[in-house]
């Protein structure tokens, strides 16, 4: 386990080489938050209603702004790293190390998430509390929401890893697959618009896909929209997706390895 965490650590150190990137990241995050703040304020005042889809304006702003914070953490480039490994042939170096490639990538992802959390998401979160006076739940709910973000991060990693293994069949497809992933997340995860606003059909589709476990679940916990048994259920669904996707990831990796062996690297 320690050897994988060493990879998380070196990735953080490596990211630190780009010293001023994080200042830019925080600034762009704040700008994005302002855009969403004005957008939702305008929507609420035009409609002249106190609530939309069960959300008050203040809840909606909290949802949108905290959603941006989570998006800052969940910025993984795993599919690109895998494609790079395949394209450059560096995968060969990885295979000569006593490492499981899935765990190795998980460790890299954890490093990315941690770096983004410490240097961008956490400062942005504190700044947005000060600027927008958003709702902050009690510590226990906050911790549960955080755990839920972590589980969502695992789901996102596994989806990215599975897409990344496609690089063994065709390099160059990764850009397209990544865009597809981003679009699916924007539309179906609840990161942009709460799932409660969706028409029934779209809502049902979102419910049976893994994307909603990435934003909808943690944000709903944060806002206290789900609690008690419903929260346990939401956690169970997250864990279900992690297990299922982990099995798929292991299988696609095995298939990728077979393909690599057949083509001779």
């Amino acid at each position: 386990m320690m050897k994988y965490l060493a990879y998380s650590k070196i990735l953080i150190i490596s990211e630190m080489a780009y010293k001023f990137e994080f200042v830019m990241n925080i600034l762009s995050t704040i700008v994005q938050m302002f855009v969403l703040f004005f957008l939702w304020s305008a929507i609420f005042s035009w409609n002249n209603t106190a609530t939309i889809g069960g959300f008050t304006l203040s809840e909606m702003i909290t949802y949108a702004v905290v959603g941006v914070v989570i998006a800052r953490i969940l910025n993984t480039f795993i599919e690109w790293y895998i494609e790079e490994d395949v394209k450059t042939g560096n995968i060969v170096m990885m295979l000569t190390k006593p490492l499981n490639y899935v765990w190795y990538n998980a460790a890299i992802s954890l490093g990315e998430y941690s770096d983004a959390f410490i240097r961008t998401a956490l400062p942005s979160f504190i700044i947005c509390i000060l600027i927008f006076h958003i709702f902050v739940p009690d510590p226990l709910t906050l911790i549960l929401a955080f755990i839920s973000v972590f589980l969502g991060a695992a789901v996102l990693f596994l989806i990215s890893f599975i897409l990344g293994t496609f690089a063994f069949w065709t390099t160059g497809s990764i850009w397209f697959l990544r865009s597809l992933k981003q679009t699916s997340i924007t539309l179906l995860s609840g990161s942009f618009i709460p799932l409660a606003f969706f028409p029934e059909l779209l809502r049902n589709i979102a419910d049976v896909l893994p994307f909603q476990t990435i934003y909808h679940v943690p944000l709903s916990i944060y806002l206290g929209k789900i609690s008690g048994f419903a929260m346990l259920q939401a956690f169970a669904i997250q864990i279900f997706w992690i297990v299922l996707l982990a099995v798929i990831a292991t299988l696609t990796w095995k298939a990728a390895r077979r393909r690599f062996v057949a083509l001779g690297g």
Partner: protein
Amino acid sequence: MDSMTNIIEVNNLCKQFKVQRREAGLAKALKTFFSQKYEVVDAVKDISFNIEKGEFIGMIGPNGAGKSTTIKIMTGILVPSSGNVKVMGYCPWDERLDYVKNIGVVFGQRTQLWWDLPPVDSFELLKHIYDIPEHRFKKNLEKFSEVLEINKLMDIPVRKLSLGERMRCDLAASLLHDPKVLFLDEPTIGLDVVAKEKIRNFLKETNKEKKTTIILTTHDMGDIEELCPRIIIIDKGQKLYDGSVAEIKKKFGKERMLIVDFVESIHPRFDWKGVRATEIDAKKFKFLVDTRMAKISDVTKRILSKYQVHDITVEEPDIEEIIRDIYRRGLRA
């Protein structure tokens, strides 16, 4: 050979690849998009050899001969189509995770160092990956910094290092965990003379002091002559020769090279028995003389009697010449 002392045993190794055929042009590209055609290529055809503990083996052969494939199978990266490999009792591809803890691997055109970070960070990472005890890690790192002269490079980001500097760091990285077997795939490729010399000295010392078994592929016959008492020549996926460098010189080095500078440009035909002439330029010729069929002195006399000559030099063909000849003509002596 006593199998007890063999650290590596390779038996009847075969590897076939599927190679994608892509034809030029847009229409053809679209066609291959819908129906991919594969061709089966034999990269390695029935190769067997044993290596004893502490040996320093040079593996040579032209590009695409199957050297790298053989190395990739021996390091557990690829699975052969058939045949057996045992290294230290492990089957490299079946027991990869346990096996690779005991080997070091360097691929000349790749690096295992982190691009944006100084080498010392990568070394630190390797300490965790291989679970190297702190005291041993420190001792090895000190030793390597001294012999490979990398102490001044330790805190420079890898992307700013020269190829030679990077390769020295990569070598250190591959040996931090004291592997019993070291695989080097073209470690001196693209390096200047000084850098090559440093690396060769280091490898020599490692092989001698730690009894590390080293398998090296290279195109540089200087590497071979300085480092490897035994060579394995591979061509078209097959083993052409397995034996000592001295032996191959004795066996195939029966030719002497005569380089003649003529005063005027000549257009002769030298169809003398045992002599092969090649034109270097109009006034300069190279004669390969098979000393079993023709005497150097006779050939020289004949040339001098017919032509005006500026200069004649006689050279023993070096190993490079011999190897080139073997690639070209096979093992027929």
